[in-house]
């Protein structure tokens, strides 16, 4: 993959993620705005390019893996909530620590099922 493609990914990914993040900023109540924390931003930026460069079958395979990634994101968000409410961690610490939950579930699924 060439440098141009990485630059394209960076700009498009940054733009789409920012767009969904701003939508989350301006919407109320907070729990509704939180929906945008799980928006398909990286997926939209990546799948479009994958379809063009590698074909629909390749992108469909990425989407199949994304199902496990999305379940991992659900567990991640739940872990964040628990860390903030039960263990009184600040948002930065909770959202950083919970990445372990995401990695464990998603990479665990990959290692156990698809590897």
């Amino acid at each position: 993959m060439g440098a141009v493609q990485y630059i394209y990914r960076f700009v498009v990914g940054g733009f789409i993620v920012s767009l969904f993040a701003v939508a989350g900023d301006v919407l109320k109540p907070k729990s509704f705005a939180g929906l945008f924390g799980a928006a398909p931003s990286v997926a939209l930026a990546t799948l479009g390019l994958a379809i063009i460069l590698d074909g629909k079958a390749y992108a469909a395979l990425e989407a199949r893996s994304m199902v496990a990634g999305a379940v991992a994101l659900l567990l991640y968000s739940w872990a964040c909530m628990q860390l903030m409410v039960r263990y009184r961690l600040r948002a930065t610490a909770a959202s950083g620590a919970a990445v372990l939950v995401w990695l464990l579930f998603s990479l665990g699924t990959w290692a156990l099922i698809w590897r």
Partner: protein
Amino acid sequence: MIIQFDISALKRTRWYEYGIRFLLGGGITVVAGFLANRYGPILGGLFLAFPAIFPASATLVEKHETQKKHRAGMSGSNRGRLAAALDSRGAILGSLGLVCFALTVWLLLPLRNAAVTLAIALAVWMGISIAIWSFEKRHRGHILSPR
């Protein structure tokens, strides 16, 4: 519960906070592409659902809510943390929508036009997320109570 737009929230966000989110989003997208290229679409696809937006958003929510309370002469750190926890509750519901987004792309993409598939999947994410959020609200948040 009525959904509202609060445009003034944009003024509370500093320029570098937008920059951080842009860098995080761009960075994760590059990493997902690199992993797919290096190790194949099965491993790379997992990272399409990496928490790219949530960490920065929750931190901002906490910071802005705490500042609001400070201006009113209160500590506000507890309120800020709980506001961020509410944000994570929304992300749990949005994740269910994201599972449906991924399922839609996986099953529909081999059969339909790519642009139409992505548009349908986005509508599915939004529709499912809002429906589950409304259902949860109607049940007074008992379904996802953190305690």
